[in-house]
């Protein structure tokens, strides 16, 4: 067989030509592909290496944005956790005027659902601004109706709305919140930073439609919000407000204030003012109604101030319980001014001076004490200074230094004139008498809680100073009980309980004449119950009563009703029988220990 050279078998001229073309094609494809790859690699290099930083920043600006974390404003509750102020989401309607296609049509459509007229809406839609509010915090049904309209340039955004489910209850204490969720009065203002926190933001990645895809986890910071637990009790607050309203209505008075405090700790259990308002509708209430008279208003206390005089005189030993004073038949001249009693008395014991609220007797006690000592005790009991309560707008009242007293001042101050005090100051001073002689700071916030109910801080009682000794308190309790048992405060007696207190009917200064008015008075009663272990110190002040216009007739019975209902609610057992009560008062109810505690926030 002939051998065949395989290689030579292909050395066909036609095969050789075809192979070259093939190789050329392959080479061409290779070159094209390589060139394309080179272009791609070059582009890749440009995008990923050379221009990487700039492009990454541009991309980041497009897909990253800051998302606000809407933390709800903290809830305010009473001491038992009953909600007094709660925040909910409330939709608000806004417009971007430049994006609104048909302003007339939009205004007509929106007017049917929003509390604005077509004209008002049109005015806002034509505003030369990029963003305008149309209606803030509307009802959910209104928001749904607006959303269904699907108008270009009109949108909804969720805001926080503050609601007070108990309506007027504790309105002055709670205060209220403005449209921008900031506290404007009361606890809402005082603890605004803790209730409202500060705006927080996290970085989020969004898609082309603006929907958030990822977000960074929020770091817990000091900007979180807290719930505030108050010292007040909803039931005691309601009882106090109800009785105060009845008293103001019955006496046709101009205004009234009633405060209930635990004298051992300074916790305010109730704080009521009349007139009052609904914090859900605070914009509609006159400023006068919204004023917290208990802490802000001052008045000349009148005869209730004789408690301070009596405490000072007994403490200094210038007076003893058995001392007798001649009543001058109901009139005494001091510094050229004649001051009268409401009855003509001959001889009175010190107990009678307080029980019958004799001005003549009180002035004589004051003259024995002297102005320097008396002033020291007045300021020692906290008058002329802030009590330090955690409420805004408190005023310190006014007491002039002895160097500025006139010839009549000592006499006037002995009967509670020429000094202006707030109801809060007066009750705080009386609480010191009730608790055994120590002045405590009143407070209304009891604790702070995280919104998962974990308590993070509690505010406890704060003893400021000892003002009078326990022995003086025991001695003073005798005439103060006589006030209620047989004196001017008989209407304050609570069945089954020992009560001590003092009435007051102070003439108001008539600014038109510059003299004290006979018609305009402030009627008051301050008292504590039960005497052997005071659980409640209560002050009632009725401003300008037209009927029953004296402390014993209108303030004392209001005290009685508040005390009776509150003692029942707190299940405080009745006092021991009278003979044992007097004996225990003489032996002493004991010194009340008040522990130092953490100061609360200011």
């Amino acid at each position, binding site marked *: *067989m002939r*051998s*065949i050279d*395989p290689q030579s*078998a292909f050395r066909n001229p036609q095969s050789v030509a075809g192979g070259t073309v093939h190789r050329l094609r392959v080479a061409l494809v290779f070159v094209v592909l390589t060139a394309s790859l080179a272009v791609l690699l070059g582009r890749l290099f440009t995008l990923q290496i050379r221009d990487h930083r700039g492009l990454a920043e541009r991309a980041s600006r497009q897909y990253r944005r800051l998302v606000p974390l809407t933390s*709800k404003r903290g809830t305010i509750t009473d001491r038992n956790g*009953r*909600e007094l102020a*709660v*925040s*909910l*989401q409330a939709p608000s309607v806004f417009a971007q005027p430049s994006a609104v296609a048909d302003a007339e049509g939009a205004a007509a459509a929106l007017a049917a659902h929003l509390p604005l007229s077509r004209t008002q809406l049109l005015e806002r839609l034509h505003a030369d601004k990029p963003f305008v509010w149309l209606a803030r915090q509307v009802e959910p049904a209104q928001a749904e109706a607006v959303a269904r309209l699907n108008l270009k340039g009109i949108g909804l955004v969720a805001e926080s709305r503050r*609601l007070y*489910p*108990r*309506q007027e*209850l504790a309105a002055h204490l709670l205060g209220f919140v403005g449209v921008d969720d900031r506290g404007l009065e009361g606890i809402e203002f005082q603890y605004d930073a803790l209730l409202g926190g500060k705006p927080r933001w996290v970085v989020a*990645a969004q898609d082309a439609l603006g*929907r*958030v*895809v*990822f*977000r960074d986890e929020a770091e817990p910071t000091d900007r979180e919000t807290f719930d505030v637990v108050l010292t007040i009790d*909803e*039931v005691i607050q*309601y009882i106090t407000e*109800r009785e105060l309203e009845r008293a103001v209505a019955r006496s046709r008075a101009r205004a009234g204030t009633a405060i209930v405090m635990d004298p051992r700790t300074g916790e305010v259990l109730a704080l009521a003012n009349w007139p009052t308002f609904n914090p859900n509708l605070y914009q509609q209430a006159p400023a006068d109604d919204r004023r917290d008279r208990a802490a802000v208003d001052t008045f000349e206390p009148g005869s209730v101030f004789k408690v301070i005089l009596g405490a000072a005189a007994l403490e200094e030993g210038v007076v003893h319980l058995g001392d007798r004073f001649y009543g001058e038949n109901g009139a005494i001249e001091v510094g050229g001014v004649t001051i009268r009693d409401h009855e003509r008395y001959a001889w009175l014991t010190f107990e009678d001076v307080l029980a019958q609220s004799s001005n003549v007797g009180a002035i004589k006690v004051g003259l024995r004490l002297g102005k320097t000592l008396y002033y020291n005790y007045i300021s020692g009991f906290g008058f002329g200074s802030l009590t330090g309560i955690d409420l805004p707008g408190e005023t310190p009242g006014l007491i002039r230094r002895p160097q500025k007293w006139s010839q009549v001042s000592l006499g006037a101050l002995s009967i509670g004139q020429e000094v202006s005090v707030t109801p809060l100051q007066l009750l705080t001073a009386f609480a010191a008498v009730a608790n055994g002689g120590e002045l405590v700071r009143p407070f209304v916030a009891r604790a702070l809680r995280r919104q998962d109910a974990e308590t993070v801080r509690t505010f406890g009682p704060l003893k400021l100073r000892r003002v009078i000794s326990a022995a003086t308190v025991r001695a003073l309790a005798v005439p103060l009980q006589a006030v209620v048992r047989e004196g001017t405060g008989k209407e304050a007696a609570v*069945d*089954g309980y020992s009560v001590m207190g003092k009435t007051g009917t102070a003439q108001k200064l008539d600014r038109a004449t510059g003299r004290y008015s006979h018609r305009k008075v402030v009627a008051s009663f301050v008292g504590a119950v039960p005497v052997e272990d005071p659980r409640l110190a209560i002050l009632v002040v009725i401003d300008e009563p037209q009927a029953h216009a004296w402390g014993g007739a209108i303030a004392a019975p209001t005290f009685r009703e508040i005390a*009776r209902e509150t003692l*029942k609610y707190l299940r405080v*057992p*009745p006092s021991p029988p009278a003979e044992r009560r007097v004996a225990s008062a003489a032996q002493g109810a004991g010194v009340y220990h008040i522990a130092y505690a953490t100061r609360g926030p200011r």
Partner: protein
Amino acid sequence: MTTRAEVLVGTAAAAPAYGPARRPFVSARTRELLALLATGTLLVGAVLFYVFQHIQVVRLGYEVERLRGERSALVEQGRALTLEAARLRAVKRVEEVARGELGMVAPAPGQIVVVR
């Protein structure tokens, strides 16, 4: 001219005489192709897996945001119910219902007996 058949015969004739010619089960070229295919499959698979993970993360991101929104709505609903409960439990309202609808009255002092 040498025909293809003759070339093949010549080639076969030039083969060493080890006995009858045995073709391998999988030829070298096939093995090469299979290896290439496997490598390509692995590469493509890895890329697909990477892309799949990314898509899953994005999808889960949407899901998380949707659940956040749902949670917010439920929390809000809880708050609204708390508010309504607070309104219904208000002492003033309870007293009005007790007196007005149920005809209840406050106990008189003598009706309360303290048991020590």
